């Protein structure tokens, strides 16, 4: 039997990051990917001949610079078509807003009435996010009988809060558990600018801007200043660079190699059993899959019933869908210069509209006006398309996982029609440009990526499922109760989005434990 120091299940961005960190730590690593392609939720694909599209996630957002450096991604082929993309927030009345570098202005060039207030708010929120962002790359501290590392971490957090100064420290503590709507509308009026900021708080989650706790998810999105970047070659190139980075240090990646079970002996992992029947040995297994699947692969009997119950109760109802389009040409947005289509384009006209969208999803209904984050990556990176066409990647926020009466073909049509109708209000004639169309409901996303409920965080990013409680009370430090078994994906701290922190932290945690190197490499 082939033996490794560590086996990583899932070659999504977290799994590949974990492998890269482990490989650099001198460990012999194998990454196992069920699908033929790599990348998980960061994967790219050919939507139509000659059209490369991001299948799910389309931008790097808060991708951690420390991890980028650690994995030498630049040396492994990662470059950017554009960093810090601007945002174009479309308004129903045509008074579109451009947000760039923490500043807002009207597309027309005039000043936005809330420009000063927005800039102040944004600056303050980024500052607050900075206090928390150090925690992204740390294993959550243990409060009960903390060791010196935990104490240092907590002390630093306390110190960082105080360093904000009394007034800002108070504001930080006030805002921390508040909701995005109040935090935003206390400072600026409702409209596309407020909607854009609120969308940051709720995107990817089953939550509305009025829900307490969304201030924290907003801060999460503003870590590292909240910049969004488009890799050259699209997300597929990003995944290739990640894979390269791990392989350049000796990690092996096997595709079309699904894992049937994690093998356990004497309460320690011994390796995995593949779907093919082959067994592979390793004293350490890191799973980038969600918690419930990981437990099932390992065997529920290896976990206490209470732990299983907690995992069963992890809330992971996805509320985000994806529509990918191959277009024969660049769509014309009314009142928008083609040069202004290089950033992300939002249809989130107000905080109110987001809340209304969420209200529908709560009952398994499709809202009349879901929020949209649209990207035309080929505008910035022509290499994605052969010829003069474009790809349009649309993240649709507020699409229920459990649709009342089910996701029939008709329901998918309705979703596509709702989104295209919304877009055609701003870009008439869009439909006539469509060469190919893919509609991915949360159900589809679950089926393809394994994300439970199609939830891109693998578990709601709610305060009671974050930090020391992520994925559940008692499993928050990556190590699962079975020896040598770790969670390294979005299910663990800090959560999803393409950050890589979970993979990085889990790998570090795994390397801290004794006995993570095998003696020799017996076959």
């Amino acid at each position: 039997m082939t033996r490794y120091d560590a086996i990583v299940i899932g070659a999504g961005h977290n799994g590949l990051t974990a492998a890269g960190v482990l490989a650099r730590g001198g460990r012999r690593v194998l990454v196992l990917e069920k699908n033929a392609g790599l990348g998980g939720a960061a994967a790219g694909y050919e939507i139509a001949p000659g059209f490369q599209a991001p299948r799910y996630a389309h931008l790097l957002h808060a991708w951690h610079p420390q991890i980028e450096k650690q994995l030498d991604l630049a040396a492994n082929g990662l470059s950017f078509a554009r960093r810090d993309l601007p945002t174009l927030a479309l308004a129903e009345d045509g008074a579109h807003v451009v947000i760039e570098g923490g500043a807002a202005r009207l597309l027309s060039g005039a000043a936005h009435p809330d420009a000063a207030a927005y800039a102040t708010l944004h600056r303050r929120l980024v500052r607050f996010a900075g206090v928390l962002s150090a925690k992204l790359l740390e294993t959550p501290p243990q409060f009960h009988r903390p060791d010196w590392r935990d104490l240092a971490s907590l002390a630093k957090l306390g110190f960082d809060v105080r360093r904000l100064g009394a007034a800002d420290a108070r504001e930080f503590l006030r805002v921390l558990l508040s909701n995005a709507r109040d935090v935003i509308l206390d400072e600026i009026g409702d409209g596309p600018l407020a909607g854009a900021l609120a969308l940051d708080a709720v995107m990817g989650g089953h939550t509305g801007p009025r829900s307490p706790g969304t201030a924290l998810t907003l801060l999460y999105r503003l870590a590292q200043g909240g910049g969004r970047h488009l890799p050259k070659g699209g997300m597929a190139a990003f995944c290739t660079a990640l894979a390269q980075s791990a392989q350049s240090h000796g990690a092996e990646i096997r595709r079309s190699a699904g894992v049937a079970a994690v093998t356990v002996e004497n309460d320690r992992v011994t390796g995995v059993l593949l779907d093919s029947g082959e067994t592979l040995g390793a004293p350490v297994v890191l799973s980038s899959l969600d918690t419930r699947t990981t437990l099932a692969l390992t065997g529920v009997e290896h976990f206490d019933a209470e732990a299983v119950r907690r995992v069963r109760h992890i809330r992971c109802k996805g509320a985000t869908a994806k529509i990918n389009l191959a277009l024969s040409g660049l769509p014309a947005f009314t009142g928008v210069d083609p040069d202004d289509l290089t950033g992300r384009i939002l249809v989130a006209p107000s905080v109110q509209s987001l809340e209304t969208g969420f209200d529908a999803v709560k009952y398994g209904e499709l809202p009349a006006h879901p929020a949209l984050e649209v990207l035309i990556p080929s505008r910035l990176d022509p290499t994605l398309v052969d010829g003069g066409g474009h790809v349009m990647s649309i993240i649709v926020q507020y699409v229920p996982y459990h649709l009342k009466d089910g996701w029939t073909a008709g329901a998918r049509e309705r979703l596509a029609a709702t989104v295209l109708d919304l877009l055609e209000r701003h870009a008439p004639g869009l439909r006539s440009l469509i060469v190919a169309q893919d509609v991915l409901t949360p159900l589809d996303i679950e089926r393809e990526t394994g994300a439970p409920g199609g939830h891109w965080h693998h578990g709601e990013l709610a305060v009671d499922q974050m930090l020391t409680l992520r994925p559940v009370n008692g499993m928050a430090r990556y190590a699962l109760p079975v020896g040598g078994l770790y969670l390294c994906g979005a299910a663990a701290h800090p959560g999803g989005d393409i950050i890589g922190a979970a993979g990085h932290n889990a790998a570090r945690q795994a390397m801290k434990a004794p006995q993570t190197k095998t003696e020799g490499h017996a076959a």
Partner: protein
Amino acid sequence: MSGRYDVIVVGAGHNGLTAACYLAKRGLKTLVLERSDWIGGAAVSRELYEGWTYSNCSYVCSLLRPEVVRDLDLPRHGLQVIPYESGATFTRDGGYFAYYSDHDALRREISRFSRRDADNYERYARAVMRQCRFIKPLLLRAAPDPVSNRPRDIAELLFLGKRFHDLGDREMGETIRFWTMSIGEFLDEYFETDVIKAHFAGSGIIGTGLGVYSPGTAYVLLHHYMGEVDGTIGAWGFTRGGMGGVTQAMARALIEAGGEIRAGAGVAQILSKDGKTKGVVLDNGDVLEASTVISNMDVKRTFLNHVEAKDLPDDFVKAVKRFKIRGSSAKLNIALDGFPSFPAAPAGAPFLKGDLHASESLDELERAYDDWKAGRWSSDPYFDMLIPTCIDPTMAPPGKHMMTVFVQYAPYELASGESWDGPARDRMAETVIAKIAEHSPDFRDLILHKEVRTPWDIEREVGLTEGNIFQGELTFDQMFFNRPVPGYADYRTPIKGLYLCGSSSHPGGGVMAAPGANAAREVLRDLGMKVSGLTPAERAA
């Protein structure tokens, strides 16, 4: 009227009366001023229909701090709280789910719906009880300032930290979860039966501008469970004579301690000079001097209506304006010509003497919240309906009854632009009455008189901004050291000698008397007086 006092309390609500009692007992010349002709604020009993006494705002008692009851000797002054033992939610199919305080009966009742839920109820009750035990000692303590270096704050933070740490690893996590979860999701983890979840979830949304699936509502439920009646944690009771019994007893205690109360004496302005309190000006122009003024009004009313902005720091005013006080509740108080029949209830059902509801699923409750968010009253509202006359004979003639119906949700401002002071009020009342009538067909015919209180009415009559019963939302951005304004969570204000003692202060609303007692303690501290000596044990020593 003129005069000089040591302490003037603005507003004779239960917190103001409490604070006044504590201070008068220490020998301070204390005056309580009340704008209305009656005292009690939202804890009142009013004869709004001849022969009937209405607890027309607050209607049941649980949270009143036993320490305050004992310190102020309220039973001797007439306070008696009678627990009720049962309650039920009626369902549209003609059934019901009942809550019994008889544990065996409750188990059997839950088993009617689900055996698993019956077992899990024990776990649920235990989890909530653990939270009650954790939080109770914190209610009569002032919140620390986490940003200050004062020894007192650091000591309090360490006390709280230790208390939290002593819970142990698992329980610390469970506590954080409980305090940040929604009541809907919390209940979903224990129960599979819709009506059971809906029955328990109501306590998580009473008086609150949040829905059952909004994070933080498990805390609101805790807020409603952490009270007690005679040591039975979570029990609720009727005050004999209506909720006015509480404030009347406090008023008698105050008079006995040498304090004064003036009704019909509204305060127009709180006076200060050079950052120091000087006294108050009444609506009629009279000036009363005092170096200590305590406001029982909510923080917005106090500072935006009765203190000059120039006397306050800008960021303080901004923070006060930002403090969320959202009206979300309505009330119907009804005089009945007899006891309404509830055909779903079996003969002799004890639960008719308790709290009655008709919302049968969490989704229904959530939709009621959605209506409120959209600026409408809930078309299918949650209500907390009781007929106290079953147990309290003092509130209506024999054989006749008084019914109190607390309604969630009703917004302060209607999206339609209509005023509440018109047909909208009656239409909202009709929504509620129609829903009750679904379960009690002879109910309408028994109505002799009804008082309908919208958020607008509550604000106008009681002085609660937007008619919010808690003087401010109970969400974490404005609880504990954030209540009402970060940096001012210790009952003090930017003006020396001016204090807040109402529910806008920690620990929040409900008829608790904790803010009043805590504020009094801080006043004594600032006056350099001994803080202890208020309990009978201490007095006896």
